[in-house]
């Protein structure tokens, strides 16, 4: 995506949703879609690359945890000055708990989660025994990194 990021055109919150099969070959689709969404905001090209990578890491994790039955769901909330991305797997495998622990205790375990935490402004992981894991991350335009 070597295009100049366009000026922000979002007035209120806008939601874009994407579902991909829980397989490695579809992670690239999530990456390109979030880049397209982020380029509607005032993010720099470097910031868009950061968001792309963070979302790819979240998908990789979700795909890895999946039992293959449910799609990986991504919700992109575009606000005037930030993007909030939620990645949901619907997998209820016990592995999920340990990921939550890693994030809760600020223990840098998986390299992927560490990258997400480094690139995004806010990261939150939440597990529900019934519905699976939900990773939410936010990045502000011209933010901290």
């Amino acid at each position: 995506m070597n295009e100049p990021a366009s000026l922000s055109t979002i007035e209120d919150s806008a939601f874009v949703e994407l579902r991909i099969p829980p397989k490695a070959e579809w992670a690239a689709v999530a990456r390109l879609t979030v880049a397209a969404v982020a380029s509607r905001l005032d993010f720099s090209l470097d910031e868009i690359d950061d968001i792309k990578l963070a979302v790819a890491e979240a998908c990789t994790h979700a795909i890895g945890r999946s039992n293959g039955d449910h799609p990986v769901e991504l919700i992109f909330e575009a606000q005037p000055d930030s993007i909030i991305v939620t990645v949901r797997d619907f997998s209820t495998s016990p592995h999920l708990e340990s990921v939550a622990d890693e994030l809760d205790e600020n223990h840098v375990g998986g390299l992927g989660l560490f990258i997400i935490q480094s690139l995004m402004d806010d990261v939150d992981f939440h597990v529900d025994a019934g519905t699976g894991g939900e990773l939410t991350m936010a990045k502000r335009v011209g933010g901290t990194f």
Partner: protein
Amino acid sequence: MDIKVNVRKSAGDAYVVELAGEIDVYTSPKVKDAITELIDQGHYNLVINLEKVRYIDSTGLGVLIGGLKRVREHGGSVNLVCTNPQIKKIFDITGLVKIFGIFDDEPSAMKALV
């Protein structure tokens, strides 16, 4: 959205693995296979050229780390060639700059192997 892997013999017993494209959860097994094959053949001094890599994530880093660990067991090393600032940044934030030799061009990376 794919990876090209090109392996070639260089000076001494060193090998160059030249990668082009995107290294992600889908394509990194191909990279791993190429590196594993070289190591299985007894080549422990590798230059991995990332100049034409537009994208790498933790699965790609994991493959590079895995390769480095294996060659080190045999006293070898892995040097990287990387000029793309976004990709350099990923090695920075993960602290991997301290573990890999990272160079701006292939001759420097090759020279530093020996």
